[in-house]
């Protein structure tokens, strides 16, 4: 069971949370007259990274806040968690 560092509550066990999938996917503005293909990208296509992934988590059985996390999908190690609206932290050795 993962141990997740909620930015509001501190370290909490995985069963208090729900994963919300890949983070930082921008919902297209209503006026953007996008073609169906790029709207499908927003709806369905995800990076599915092998390695560090930015994703959303919801502390449903806790503070009930959403937040972001950087998780290595291979080792399940969390590099960081950060609040909605905060900029993703830089990782050592990461390409910006």
């Amino acid at each position, binding site marked *: *069971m993962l*141990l997740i560092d909620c930015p509001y509550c501190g370290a909490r*066990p995985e069963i208090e949370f729900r994963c919300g999938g890949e983070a930082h996917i921008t919902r297209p503005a209503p006026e953007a007259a996008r073609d*169906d293909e790029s*709207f499908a990208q*927003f709806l369905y296509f995800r990076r599915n990274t092998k390695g560090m992934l930015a994703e959303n988590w*919801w502390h449903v059985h806790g503070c009930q806040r959403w937040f972001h996390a950087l998780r290595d999908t291979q080792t399940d190690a969390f590099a960081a968690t950060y609040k909605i609206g905060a900029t993703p932290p830089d990782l050592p050795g990461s390409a910006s």
Partner: protein
Amino acid sequence: MKPTSQSHRLDQMGRIDRNRPLTFTFNGKPIQGYAGDTVASALLAHGIHLVGRSFKYHRPRGIISHGSEEPNALLRVDRGAGREEPNNRATVIEARDGLQVFSQNHWPSLTLDALEINDLLSPIFSAGFYYKTFMWPAKFWKKLYEPLIRRASGLGEAPGTADLDRYQHRFAHCEVLVVGAGPSGLAAALAASQNPQTRVFLVDESTEMGGSLLHDAEAEIDGQGALDWLEASLATLASRKNLTLLTRTTAFGYYNHNMIGLAERVSDHLAMPQHLPRERLWQLRAGRVILACGAHERPLVFPGNDRPGILLAESIRAYLNRYGVLAGQRLVIATCGGAPYQLALEARRAGASVTLCDRRRPDECGPELGLAEAAGCEILTATAIVGTRGHDRVRAVQIAPIHGAPPSLPRWLECDAVGMHGGFTPNVQLYSQSRGKLRFATEIDAFVPGDAVQANQSAGACRGIYDLDACLLDGWQAGGGTHRTFVASPRPGGFLPGGPWEDATGGEKAFVDFQNDVTSKDIGFAVDEGFRAIEHVKRYTTTGMATDQGKTSNMNALGLVARKLRQPVARTGTTTFRLPYTPVSFGAFAGPHHEAMFDPVRRTPMHGEAEAAGAVFEDVGTWKRALFFRREGETMAQAVAREARNVRENVGVFDASTLGKIEINGPDAGAFLNRIYFNDVLKLAVGRARYGLMLREDGHIFDDGIIARLDTNHYHITTTTGGAGRAQAHLENYLQTEWPELQAYATPVTEQWAVISVQGPRAREVLAPLMTGMDISRAAMPHMSVRTGACCGVPCRLFRVSFTGELGFEVNVPADYGPMIWRAILDSGRGIAPYGTQAMHVMRAEKGYIIVGQETDGTASPADVGLGAMTPRSKPDYVGQRGLLRAEMTRPGRKQLVGLLSLDPAQVLDEGAQIVRHSRADVPMASLGHVTSAYASPNCRCAIALAMVENGAARHGETVYVTRPNGWSKVHICPPVFVDAQGSRVHG
């Protein structure tokens, strides 16, 4: 039956308590033992070695080990009905008065097993046989071959009755977990628990702590006997309040972020367990883990190495020193290293004759050689066992010089027990589960922990350290201890690495995996047939895949493969270790979460009232809802018909409390809801309500309900029963992550309000006398409005809404008042009667009202279900807006909501049935759609149905066919409404 004597029990020696004798039965035969015995030690005390039959070949098998790695001695334990368990290892079962154990996998008996014929037919049953045999004729496989093979092979039989025992769970946290309470683990725990602020757990799978010290009879630690040191250390540990000591507890799984699964056997060994659970599953989160799991001894691979009476050498030593049992009087010890020489000395002292067959040349041995000779042991160096004799018990071994030694003829040695030592394998299972990397240590011919990935470190034998003083120091340092040395008796070593050498000669099988009956020849065949990767060899031969997970077989298998491929073991690699380390009962995993406690059973405030009125309940998610109310002598169909007719003719009352309710507050409450819902919200006036659809971004419907405006910035919305949590999650998600600038709050109030729905032409007559502070007349309160006031003196939110198509109200009162209001409403006469969810379903279908999740399946848009008229005229943005514009959502041919009327009015269709153009069309037929809801309608006096059909809206009047289990129904497509098509009754 007279119990056999304990012919192999010594008068002295052992940690058993001879003052507390006990008797259990083995295959019905009484077996005597003492407190502290395992079933295995007591059986061996009686000279009983034959305890089972092997998996495939049904060869006679005996006890091999003294611990949880035992592959052979699997017994059924019978503690009474509902308490039987197969495949228990005799070396782990604690002997207890009244215990009944039975051998497995034989017919008609253990000593006379008809299926031993498999051993003769073994060429057919070699590894992978089921890929090559029993293939023709094809239909025989299911009916004949598979059932026969399953009956002929296998381990125990699954119990046929439900488990009567109780199991519990516990979550726990500690700063340091030490796994294994042998010398390294004890030292680690002593060091780590010095600081009283540090919470330490020390766990061991055995009945008492001490590990190898328990049978290391003559060892000394720091000037005192090892057992005295053990006793003193345990006393120290027990006195520390920051330390939790658990015996009979197996660390079976290493999970993410240092969470360790422990299976604790709490009460099986107790005569009077009282209120204790049988087992407890711990989920322990440790700051760091110290793995002190020890090492397993390796068997030797030689022809006939599986006869009863052939054990691991260290296990013979354990039976001698820990249980006071001498496995045999004429002992042959086959070894490739110095470790079993200690056993030789001790066995001599206990009166056995001892012959050592050492694969090493004299110049490769150490001082242990001279000591053993002086004690009267016969020593044959550069010698190996190449064969054995004896059916129920080993009678003799055939020995020969090893390759390169001066040749001589093989000869036979008579014996009644054999101890084999093929080296030690550090136990890296838990470490590997933590995803740590292994490295191969050539000097000890074993894999040891390399770079750890999680916060753990290994200490002692499980990382290849075998000397006692080094083990103690390693554990002490791992526990954070400093400034300390240990002085302890040396242990003879001199292990000759290189793996098993013998190729099976003649027809005699040399076993690698005892539990799955895998021989060295099988491994050879696998490589010959092209399986090179160790993972493939494992699966093809099934070596290492039995319940013992290859603890005594993996390294030998690996050695054989490496030798055959002429490559180093390090390059051949090792297979993945998977949890559980040893089998864990299903009961332990289930814990308290089963039967009535599997899920919370949720009841509404009026549940008791409904029960009293004869309700039959159905499960809706975890809620209990009244399906119908049975009167004397009624069938369900009759009750539902009566209820649905009564609502349209008089008035009915219905419990709608389970539907989700959410309050939306804040200056942007309306703007927020306007973005969430498909239809317009901003123009909804205070005191009015409207039906709302929630879409996902792709434009598909995922929930629906009522939006009611209580005040300028105060809304009350409802959701489906099953969708309440989902809708709340949806709202919070958008508020927090998408539109945090909106000042709106969503507060769930599902359980605050009991909801009593009153539906039918006489609904107002029933309610008006009960209401105060609200004018509910037709003019003052139109359809789709909301008022607040009091009902029977308690606060009330009254909604005029209808899911039946009749004049209807939903009375919301704070939950504790629900039963009282329900009774007051029912007491009002006027032909009122309660109705359940089934009648509710029928009536809403009569009106063509959809149920999200029934008519929709996540792929329906508002237009598909005939709600295109709700499309908002000018909304800047809402969830699903862009999705609805996709070409897929607007293309012709999409499935649309229609009604179906069977030509035979009594024929109720099957929900989910497929719809086709004609019953005689060519197969495969094209599906036009499916039936979503189907009922017998009392108000229409015929069967009705709703369906989703391609281009449905354009097909009214067409005849189509619907599948039945045995044929077809002919139906007409019609508009999806069967009663009051004008919708005028609801405005009554």
